[in-house]
């Protein structure tokens, strides 16, 4: 259970000279917590621009859903955008459609064959007596002339957008055989302003960039956001006290706890697959080493012991080992440590800089930052055969985060001198960018699938 300060959605850490005295008084009052509530902070919003899709995208017609539209929220349009942005679909525009069926009885397959649609999605949105929204949808294969699936979903009006994402997930999974990730969320760090106005923000948004909000704002750096399994808690590093410390925060309540603040480095948290332990880097014993903290018992266990830098630990999907970055070979490379035996094995051998390993959900490959010809890219290495494929053609690429279905990698890169997020599919076929309305964007963290 989380103990700590109860806070709203938005927290601000302040230290401006004007408010310094008040702030110090407050700090004394709170016993060291340098956190204030703030209202009306607008988050730095991301938009998605597809730069590369598959050669032969699947064509789908999503007919405008009949019935009530809540505040102009167009469910069919959201589904269309989601599928289009996946890079694997071509969504036919409503003005090119020959008919507007709302259910199976109204579908004439010939109308859809004529305009080259392989799949057809129709639906109805209705308001219920208790003020909720009921959405019925049906998916058809035009080529086979058959209804593939249908469903009735109910949600509150405010969750209609989420419902559109869930329909997108179902359609995507039905057609591609891959789990959909449109209903997931992302965390990311933004840096805005310069000099005294410089602020670091931890943001939370839907995977399509909507519903962005600030979780934490600080004049000091915020780093390394990561999700706990289940998507209800997160961990991150904040320098708000003047030194790095690791915090664990519950998203729904805003309750958070500072779990470590040893002298020196406290960084790179990662939750174990069962959510009970936090892997992390501490330099309290003189050198950056990897530790495991049991969150309930508070037991701290040291995992590595080497005079070189050991950092960026990540649990393997089975929870039995950690992948990490170490400079023990003279240059940063990826290693694996077995948690039962403590045995360390080198994993990466191609190139002179491989770091920040993120295992794919199947445990067979690892995504990492890889330097080739002096340029930092995102690459994927097959753990059995050892071969490395470079996925990105951008430069200064870092902080890869893998989508929960293992299909896409979100990462940070540079564009025209600014930090932006970009994504690439693990097969390298789909690429898109997520430019921000303001500031530098970095360190994305993709949420797990949520029920």
């Amino acid at each position, binding site marked *: 259970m989380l103990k700590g300060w109860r806070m709203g959605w938005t927290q601000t850490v*302040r*230290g*401006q*000279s004007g408010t*310094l005295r008040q*702030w*110090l008084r407050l*700090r004394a009052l709170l016993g060291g917590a*340098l956190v204030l509530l703030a209202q009306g902070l607008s988050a730095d919003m991301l938009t998605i621009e597809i730069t590369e899709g598959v050669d032969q995208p699947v064509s789908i017609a999503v007919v405008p859903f009949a019935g009530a539209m809540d505040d102009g929220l167009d469910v069919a349009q959201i589904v269309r955008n989601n599928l289009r942005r996946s890079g694997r679909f071509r969504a036919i525009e409503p003005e090119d459609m020959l008919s507007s069926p709302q259910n199976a009885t109204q579908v004439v397959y010939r109308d859809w064959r004529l305009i080259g649609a392989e799949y057809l999605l129709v639906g109805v949105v209705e308001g219920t007596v208790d003020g909720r929204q009921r959405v019925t949808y049906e998916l058809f294969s035009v080529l086979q002339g058959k209804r593939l699936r249908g469903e009735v979903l109910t949600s509150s009006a405010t969750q209609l957008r989420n419902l559109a994402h869930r329909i997108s997930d179902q359609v995507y999974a039905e057609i591609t055989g891959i789990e959909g990730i449109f209903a997931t969320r992302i965390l990311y760090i933004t840096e805005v302003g*310069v000099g*005294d106005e410089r602020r*670091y923000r931890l943001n939370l948004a839907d995977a399509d960039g909507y519903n962005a909000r600030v979780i934490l704002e600080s*004049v*000091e*750096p915020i*780093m*390394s956001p990561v999700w706990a399994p289940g998507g209800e808690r997160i961990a991150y590093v904040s*320098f*708000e*006290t*003047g*030194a*790095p410390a690791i915090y664990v925060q519950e998203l729904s309540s805003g309750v958070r706890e500072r779990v470590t603040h040893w002298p*020196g*480095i406290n*960084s*790179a948290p990662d939750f174990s697959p069962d959510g009970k332990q936090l892997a992390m*880097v501490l*330099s309290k014993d003189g050198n*950056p080493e990897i530790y495991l903290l049991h969150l309930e018992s508070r037991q701290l266990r040291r995992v590595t012991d080497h005079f070189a*830098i050991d*950092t*960026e630990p990540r649990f393997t999907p089975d929870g039995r080992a950690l992948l990490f*970055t170490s*400079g023990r070979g003279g240059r*940063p490379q990826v290693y694996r440590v077995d948690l039962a035996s403590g045995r360390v094995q080198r994993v990466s051998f191609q190139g002179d*800089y491989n*770091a*920040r390993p993120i295992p794919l959900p199947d445990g067979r490959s690892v995504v990492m*930052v890889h330097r080739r010809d002096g340029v*930092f890219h995102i690459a994927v290495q097959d753990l059995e055969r050892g071969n490395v494929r470079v996925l990105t053609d951008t430069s*200064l690429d*870092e*902080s890869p985060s893998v989508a929960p279905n293992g299909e896409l990698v979100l990462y940070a890169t*540079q564009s025209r*001198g600014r930090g932006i997020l970009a994504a690439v599919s693990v097969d390298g076929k789909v690429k898109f960018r997520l430019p921000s309305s303001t500031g530098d964007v*970095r*360190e994305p963290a993709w949420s797990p699938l949520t029920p």
Partner: protein
Amino acid sequence: MMPMTAPLRTLFLSLVFALLAGCGSRGGVAPEPDSDQLPPAVEAQGMQGADQSGAAGQEADRAGAESFGVGDDGAISSATLPDLSELGTLVYFGFDDDNLQPEFRDLVLAHARYLIANPTQTLLLEGHTDERGTREYNLALGERRAKAVRNLLLLEGVPASRIRVVSYGEERPANPSHTEAAWDENRRVELKY
């Protein structure tokens, strides 16, 4: 680790010269305790120790800009104390390197003398890196750089209890540009009183 190229060495030497001569306008001057340039959290630290910093500042003022002999083995009197504002406070490093370059030894030794002569004075060493490489690795690298400076201060007899080390990795660049020149400026340790 990496051999330094001739132009790079020249750059470092000229930087040292500029800093020792008090011309390091870009944050190269030791900030006043209440300076706006200090990051707020460090400012908060400064507030807590404001009395000490103020006293040390006045002492340094009395000493004025009088030169002091680097490498002088004699006892240090307050008259030979350096003016903090004229003493270089930036130590630069090579790419992916945490070794203290010989060019910066004298600067660190001067700080050691200052700290020994001012037993109440504490020092914050901030380690920084350029943006290349991963953020967490750079956080560790920044700490190793700050500790390279700290180790020399300890060797000179400054008590460990008076030196605090914080690494910011690549999070607080001195120059936000994405050029070789900016990266040279960003691989640094800042000495802050």
